[in-house]
């Protein structure tokens, strides 16, 4: 049902520049409007539990995943909807998972923080901060050992910089020259605490300590993210080892959908600045128009199409049945 679910053609390089950047635009809009629906489901009390919205960070997931093959691996985070969509997940099955329905990616057993999809190389979103750094590195080990040319991308927020296991696996990835790319989405806040209060030294200095190829990118610029991702993916695939990318970005919403009073840790003017001046979708729209790849009417049409895609996906999920109770102890063991 979704208009963009996979991108073998992008990987094959058959898209021209215009198509490529319009596709990136659409992907970012899909993430934004997906998250709008999630917030709506929460406020209407239709969604069990909470969710952590990716709005504001779309250019990172899209810029990276557009540089990947469908069979490359990703690991994601509690704030993972954007990564899953960017890697090719369908919104209908994602919404179904968020509502705990059997049609969901995890048959309702994972929920918002655990969407996993072997068909798109998604090893799973992880609700332990930094919890998937080993899994991504292990997938890179398997790729190298099996010689299948796959690259693993490990998404995590700057909060994961506090976890020691990250440094253990980066050390190993460099020693073993594994095709893994650690993508640190620095959205400035470890939950409710500014990262400057939790992070000594520099972010890139951590990767540099292991001799891991490290770079910083403006995470609001999808083309910049994609350009550097293409380079890092290429060198990883060529056997040149791991890389670390710091993508500077911003989380528009609270830590989760229920975090609405945020002034004790950040100002409304700061939020407004990012939304007005640094929005990845607006910035990319402006660029598309300036390059005559689209006019504002064409971009509006994309938004309308995506909105209708998301509304249909939500409807599908709401109408989908819950799993039967006898499934509760299925799949504990393989």
């Amino acid at each position, binding site marked *: 049902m979704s208009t963009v679910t996979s991108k073998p053609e992008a990987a094959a390089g058959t898209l021209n520049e215009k198509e490529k950047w319009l596709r990136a635009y659409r992907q970012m809009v899909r993430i934004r409007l997906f998250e709008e629906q999630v917030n709506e489901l929460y406020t209407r009390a239709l969604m069990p539990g909470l969710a952590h919205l990716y709005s504001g960070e779309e250019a990172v997931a899209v810029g990276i995943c557009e540089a990947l093959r469908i069979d490359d691996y990703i690991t994601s985070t509690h704030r993972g909807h954007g990564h899953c969509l960017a890697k090719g997940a369908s919104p209908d099955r994602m919404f179904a998972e968020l509502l705990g329905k059997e049609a969901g990616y995890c048959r309702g057993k994972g929920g918002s923080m655990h969407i996993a999809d072997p068909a798109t190389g998604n090893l*799973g979103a992880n609700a332990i901060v930094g*919890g998937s750094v*080993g*899994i991504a*590195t292990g997938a890179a*080990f*398997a790729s190298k050992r099996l010689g299948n040319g796959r690259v693993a991308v490990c998404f995590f927020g700057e909060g994961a910089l506090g976890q020691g296991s990250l440094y253990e696996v980066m*050390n190993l990835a460099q020693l073993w020259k594994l095709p893994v790319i650690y993508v640190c989405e620095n959205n400035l806040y470890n939950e409710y605490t500014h990262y400057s209060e939790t992070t000594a030294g520099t972010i890139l200095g951590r990767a540099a300590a292991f001799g891991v190829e490290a770079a910083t990118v403006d995470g609001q610029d999808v083309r910049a993210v994609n350009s550097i991702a293409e380079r890092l993916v290429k060198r990883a695939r060529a056997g040149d080892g791991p890389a670390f990318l710091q993508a500077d970005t911003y989380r528009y919403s609270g830590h989760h959908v229920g975090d609405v009073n945020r002034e004790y840790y950040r100002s409304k003017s700061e939020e407004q600045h990012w939304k007005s001046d640094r929005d990845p979708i607006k910035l990319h729209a402006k660029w598309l128009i300036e390059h005559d790849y689209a006019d504002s009417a064409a971009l509006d049409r994309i938004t309308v199409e995506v909105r209708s895609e998301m509304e249909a996906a939500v409807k599908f999920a709401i109408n989908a049945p819950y799993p039967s109770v006898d499934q509760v102890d299925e799949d504990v063991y393989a």
Partner: protein
Amino acid sequence: MPERELTFAQAVREALAEEMRRDSRVCIFGEDVAEAGTPFKVLSGLVEEFGRERVLDTPISEAGFTGIGVGAAMTGIRPVVDIMFGDFLTLTMDQMVNQAAKAHYMSGGHWKVPMVMRTTLGATRRSAAQHSQSLHAWFSHVPGLKVVLPSTPCDAKGLLKTAIRDENPVVFFEDKMMYKLKGPVPEEDYTIPLGVADVKREGEDITLVATSSMVQVALGAAVLLEKEGLSAEVVDPRTTWPLDEKTIVDSVKKTSRVIVMDEGYGRYGVAAELAAVIAEGAFYDLDAPVKRMGAMHVPIPFSPPLEDVTVPTEGSIFKAAKEMCGK
């Protein structure tokens, strides 16, 4: 022809070598697993046969290389992760409990984690509190993991081969005091299923349910009891999960008396669980309350006379069994 004998360590090594020959996806990760062959020399010779691409020395980063094992298992490798001392399992807990154990269920059955974590348990090696614990109860508590506790060279080989072929994360505990124990091991290829207990000795008067290191101790106690005219049955569950409840309960129904012994801590431990299984399954057949015997509730001390009283012995089991039988 007399049956071939191997040590426990040789049996483990033979299982690994055979599985690595059979399946090129099997790889070993761990500290000093390659040329050193581990401090216990269990893996000696494997790197020479299979190369450093498949027997990989890691940094001292238990959480890191366990996590790599989980990810590699999900994507086509059959890792055997070596945690030198069971005490170091504490460093792997997030990877085992939150990642390996849950990936299959949480993904709706989409991802699998076919990995084995080999590690050790057991006190009385004069290694003090951080190299002597038996922490298998922690893993038995977590749905999604399987836990194996071999007590003989033959069982070690057959169970390890099965564990490597299993599609789930399996934690395989070896008693480090048992590595030099010799026992018969068949020449031919064999495996032993997980979840099938073994009656190591048949008897009529009392059941001794014993795991891992405690099986040999229980067998020793049974010999002492025989001299007193008491016939003890020794039941070895071999795996704490899956657990063969039937064999245990059937034995207790037959003998009507039971002592459960396990080298982990008695409180909230494997012995407690086995006692509960027996209480639920054989309460009306019991002539005496179920007795638990486990490690004393103290950190394992270094000094030999102190350490020796922390774990059940042939003597303490003999005494307890005799009392239970009214002798």
